[in-house]
């Protein structure tokens, strides 16, 4: 699945949130959208997802113009957003259609993959934050999306759970080769996961630079190469000057 953005912008009631964004993602690439809060990175992701159709410019998935929610796209939100009245398994199979038996088999398989094989009958109230986000990941993956859109998916989790889930995401990527767009404000997370990091800055947000990480995975979290890149990113974010 390829993704292409051409001069994409979004204006809310005369206020431009983000403008002139052009980028592309190849098959199986993990692209990070990194920036301080308010620079429009989540806005961009919503436009790509088709949830927000009022953007300017062009967004193409596999060459086709995005004008509504795409079946081939999966979305993982910042919060788990589970339906409290459904069990874990029912939440995971929510987006599937077809026979109940098939749906449940598929759901169980994906739950095992995210490490929740024995929790299918629990309700969301009984889950920890990390478990709930695992369920959300399973729900997004169960439809086998070709592109996975992630909106700060791990930002509400503690540091250790976060690392576990980042590795889980990479396992999934290795297996399915899903193209991913990851919105984050966590530089380490972006460096650990992404092939390329697109840095946005300002209000309205614009692309200031693009960094190729190009390190083989799994990347050692404390490597000097990643630390160097982090310095570069901090420089281009230019936190001292930004408003």
């Amino acid at each position, binding site marked *: 699945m390829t993704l292409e953005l051409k001069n994409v912008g979004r204006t809310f009631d005369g206020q431009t949130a983000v403008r002139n964004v052009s980028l592309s993602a190849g098959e199986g690439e993990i692209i990070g959208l990194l920036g301080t809060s308010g620079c429009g990175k989540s806005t961009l992701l919503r436009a790509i*997802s088709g*949830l927000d159709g009022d953007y300017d410019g062009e967004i193409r998935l596999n060459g086709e113009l995005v004008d509504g*929610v795409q*079946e081939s796209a*999966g*979305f993982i*939100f910042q*919060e788990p*957003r589970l*339906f*409290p*009245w*459904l069990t874990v398994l029912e939440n995971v199979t*929510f*987006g599937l259609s077809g026979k109940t038996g098939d749906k449940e088999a598929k759901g169980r398989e994906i739950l095992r993959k995210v490490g929740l094989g024995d929790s299918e009958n*629990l*309700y*969301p*109230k*009984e889950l920890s934050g990390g478990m709930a986000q695992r369920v959300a990941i399973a729900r997004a993956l169960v*439809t086998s999306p070709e592109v996975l859109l992630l909106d700060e998916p791990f930002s509400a989790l503690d540091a250790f759970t976060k690392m576990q889930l980042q590795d889980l995401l990479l396992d999934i990527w290795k297996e399915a080769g899903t193209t991913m767009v990851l919105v984050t404000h966590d530089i380490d997370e972006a460096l650990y996961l992404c092939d390329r990091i697109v840095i946005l800055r300002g209000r309205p947000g614009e692309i200031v630079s693009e960094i190729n990480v190009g390190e083989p995975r799994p990347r050692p979290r404390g490597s000097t190469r990643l630390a160097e890149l982090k310095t570069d990113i901090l420089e281009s974010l230019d936190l001292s000057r930004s408003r």
Partner: protein
Amino acid sequence: MVKQAISIPGTSRQTKGKANAKTAGAQKVLLGGILPLALIIVWEALSRAGVFPSYQLPAPSVILSAITGMAQDGSLWSHAGITVYRVFAGFLIGALVAVVLGSVVGFYKKAEHVLDPTIQAFRSIPSLAWVPLFILWMGIGEPSKVTMIAVGVFFPVYLNTVSGIAGVDRKLIEVGRMYGLNAYQLVTRVILPAALPSFLTGLRSGLGLGWMFVVAAELMGASQGLGYLLVVGQNTLSPETIIASIILFAVIGKLSDWILKIIEERALHYQDRAVNS
């Protein structure tokens, strides 16, 4: 007290939690029963000693025998039966109309602009003020009473349905949209289940009002029913009939609320509540 009522989530502790809840429940009933029991004993003693004149406040044993007497000659069942029937019919009609109107107003902004102001205006009329008009229109038979009760039930159910639908988390709706749900599927799979808690709250307060209104309706003109017993008791100077009727109202009203509460707990078992209300 509160500590014992906290439900413990997690499967491993569930059985132990249930057993605990049972003993805690029994203890609660015991604690709650002490005061009324003591009051009844004191009341009985004082009545027998002649402190309360029996033509104003008869002894509990007299009231009890009045109730058993009515139960034996069958009049208790016919009076209670007709009252329950009225509340039930009024509740059903009022709730049904409220669900339909509430859903329409909750889902469509246009409908809200058209309907809601009028409904709110009617709400500000004290509902009992309708009684004379309904009797004038429909006579003193069943239709006027059932209508009266339906009006009482309507407003809480309507308001809670509207606010339940309007208050559905936008984020959950977005998840539904992300999976390509159409409008109908969004309603049935996301919005209605999400609005259910508020709707059930509306039903319970609606039922409470239904019981209030049946008394009003039966006081105004009836030849049967627990409210009619109140009037009979007043006219025949028999306070035991009045108090017996009051007790029956309390028991049946509580019973019906208890049924709704059980339905509510079953339907909302997934909710993350610290204290079981």
